[in-house]
């Protein structure tokens, strides 16, 4: 049997027209950016490549692992399956916008450090942003609630236990601090 692997599209069908660029305005960690992006351009690529905020990682590019998690108008989303044009007009928060300043860690980051809620650190930015959202919604979660909450995000290293420890610790610190 002979099979030819057919190419998908002819040259003419590829959209290379610069006119296909779409103007967008996004505010990332408090700074407003005006950009022109292709319709297909992913939010994660705008953050990582155009704005050079490389703390947002990708683990699957398929919307499964949660490694690319950012907050869009306060809610966590998967930036690998969010188009940049969908973020037009939105407020985006990435891991770079979590710590109050260059010398101080956010209490969640501090708790992750003390409890070793990370090993390779690759899932960590998405995990920290997800934990922040969980604690905003429920400042005093049980371990089971934390597990359910972070089950949106995969971590291959830690087995999650110390992430749960860190989240509970962060909740306590934040309760003391407020």
């Amino acid at each position: 049997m002979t099979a030819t692997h057919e190419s998908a599209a002819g040259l003419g069908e590829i959209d290379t027209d610069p006119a296909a660029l779409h103007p967008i305005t996004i505010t990332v960690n408090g700074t407003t950016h005006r950009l022109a992006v292709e319709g297909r351009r992913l939010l994660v690529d705008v953050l990582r490549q155009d704005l050079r905020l490389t703390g947002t990682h990708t683990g699957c590019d398929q919307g499964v692992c949660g490694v690319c998690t950012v907050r869009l108008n306060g809610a966590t989303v998967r930036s690998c399956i969010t188009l940049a044009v969908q973020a037009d007009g939105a407020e985006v928060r990435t891991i770079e916008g979590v710590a109050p300043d260059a010398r101080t860690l956010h209490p969640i980051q501090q708790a992750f450090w003390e409890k070793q809620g990370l090993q390779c650190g690759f899932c960590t930015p998405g995990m920290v942003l997800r934990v922040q959202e969980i604690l905003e919604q429920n400042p005093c979660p049980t371990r089971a609630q934390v597990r359910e909450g972070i089950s949106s995000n995969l971590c291959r290293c830690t087995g999650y236990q110390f992430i749960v420890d860190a989240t509970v610790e962060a909740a306590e610190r934040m309760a003391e601090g407020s």
Partner: protein
Amino acid sequence: MSQTTDSHADVPAPMAPHKDMKWIGKSVKRVEDPKLLRGLGRYIDDVVLPGMLHAAVLRSPHAHARIVSVDAERARRAPGVVAVLTGPEAAEQFGPLPDSGPAPDKHVWRVLAADKVHYVGEGVAVVVAENRYQAEDARTLIDVTYDVLEPVVDPIAAAEDTGNLVHEALGTNVAYERTFTFGDVAHDFADADLVVRDRLRWGRQTAHPLDTTAAIGDYDAGTGEMVVHTNSISMTWLAFGAAVALGIPSNKLDLRPYISGGSFGSKQFCWRSTVTAAMMSKITGRPVKYVEDRLDHQLNGDQHGSDRYYDVELALMRDGTFRSLKIDCVDDYGAYIQFGVGSHGNALAQVTGPYRITSTEYRVRAVLTNKTQQGAYRGFGADAGNWALERIVDKAAAELGLDPADIRRRNLIPPDAFPYHIPSGNMYDSGNYEPVLDHALQRFDYDGWRRKQEAMRAEGRKIGIGVVTANERSVYGATEFWFWFDDKDVPVKTTSTPEGVSMTVDTVGAVTVTLYSTPFWGNSSDTVAAMLAAEEFDVDPADVSVVHHGTKGGLPAAGPGGSRLTVMLAGAITGASKKIKDKLRRIAAHDMEVDEADLEWVDGGYQVRGAEDSRRSIGDLAMLAYLVKTALPDGEESGLAADFVYDHPHLTMPKPDRSDLGSFYPCVGHACHLVAVEVDEETGSVDILDYVAVHDSGTLVNPRSYDGQIVGGTAQGVGTALAEEMTYDAAGNPLVGTFWDYLIPTALDVPEVNFGHEETPSPITAHGIKGGGEAGRLMAPGALSAAIDDALRDHGVRVTELPATPERIVGWIQGHRG
């Protein structure tokens, strides 16, 4: 390193755990973490070089097909495209990838397929463009004509098939076959009261770090220098293999290590992305980044785990005493066999586990099929080996009506038998196994759980308890890769697995450690190095600077793998520190005009014994070493720097007839895992109710990060036992390719692990440390399998195949219902 063939005359008796250390044994916060927590880790895909291009690889849709033609003309004209390299073109310009398997010329392994594709996902062309979007667009414009062949999928059938071959030049699909016999197996079997037999299946899995394998090649056409920024390949002393593939002199290649989001073994042998990025940089003269996407990684990452079919026989006495063990294993290696059967060498390091078993037979057949080839995954073959042994032990306990904890206890190697040689020849350096079992049983409240279990079962709930007692060999020796072959067939009988470090103490006494192989893979290389150096110099680990050096001009180093890193860094840093401290002592003695022997190191400086106010701090002495040449003893060089290459702590050579493989994996830890599960008979789901893990890996360096390794490895073991499987259909099509269908555990799938520790120091390593990085995954599959058996004992179910997915469990229940 000792390379004698005599036994263990040079192995000192185990020492008592030492408790007088400043940093070792403390749960220090990791020095790597602040940057990672801020998203400033600089993983390889975060790096941008000026003028950098991006690569995408076109992959075979067929498991087995001849490449008739590859037409890339339309792709070459596509927007943004700078170069396209097809498989046939690559074969003309670049050499094969480094392959230490048997007869590498008969199953030539290339970065792109040249004449035939051997599995779905094998690369056939690379496109390089200004950005990844354009590279992927252009990839779809390449026309490949294939002559599709019958796929070779079932390894059992493939082993017998001489007509349809994955590699015609090999003349068979069996890349390697050998039977080793250690001791008088026939006699022990004849003498035994009974023989328990099992047929077991360990499914194909893969490590799946969340960060894939990636590299940036940066070739300087003027100098001929090739720099590759890479998150894989830790083995400095084997980097010449990549230079050969790339056709450049070995001393013009520099592999620069980058941190990576996990490896678990999978990045150890990953030549492909490094070579892909480098060859395309050589062709274009510009930096080229190649980052595997998840599908690239799954289908073509060279890192699938063991895929084994076992026949196991255990000969034993009616009182439960084990006598002999026979293992016959077919391993489906996929289309290539890059490291030979090293993963069976690994299993042979602890083939009889923690038990007194006097003889063993081990047969392996390594079969090639049209699938992605194997790499390393946490356990490297000893994962499957431990599981198979623990399965047969459970079957023996069931047949004799013995409690699974009791049958294990009566067979454990007693503490006075160490150092202990198992039948294959490997030496276990030290151990005290029964306290580990007792500790675990008590921590779990085994008797209490047994009572609770009966009460819950009386209510109709399917509750089961599983126990394993198993070993974790650590610090591999290179002989495991070649003792499979007769001496005459081994071109270089490699015995080195070096780990080099350089250390400096600067003018003001600040310490820097340079590592030569060790990309940070989540395994705390920097924290470990900082703690070990801090222990030597009485500084704070947070103040130690750790540098990662590239391969070019570097010391030899083998990096993480086989749970060796902490042990090897301890040896190297202890050695380099001693050189520097000896020099500091000479300078101090000279300056203080006292005899060197009268000085002692106390709290970060040298003082005359007992005279605290005579102390010269490391900073004072460093100032002299760098700035006051006239204060140094005659002939003493300025500065404070030392290199040290630590090699394997205890390697002995295999006997020529291979009746004894020598000692190659000698730092042997032990663990007991206990688990209680509930199985839902209708859905087949397994709920973990309680989980205890007690480990003994010798001296603990950083207990919190050690526990992190245990719980992380245990979680991977849960995935191994219950969910993860790389499946193929009968035509060789992979049935999983994403995290939607390759199910790595979520936070809801894994237990809270209740940890316990015992510490039996190694007599042959610095500080008595043994490795522990793989330990969790080496234990959990056996414990969970046993617990499922126990839960479903009314149905007569035994877990003989992993993963024990819900579908399989329901099928087993239905099968037994008839």
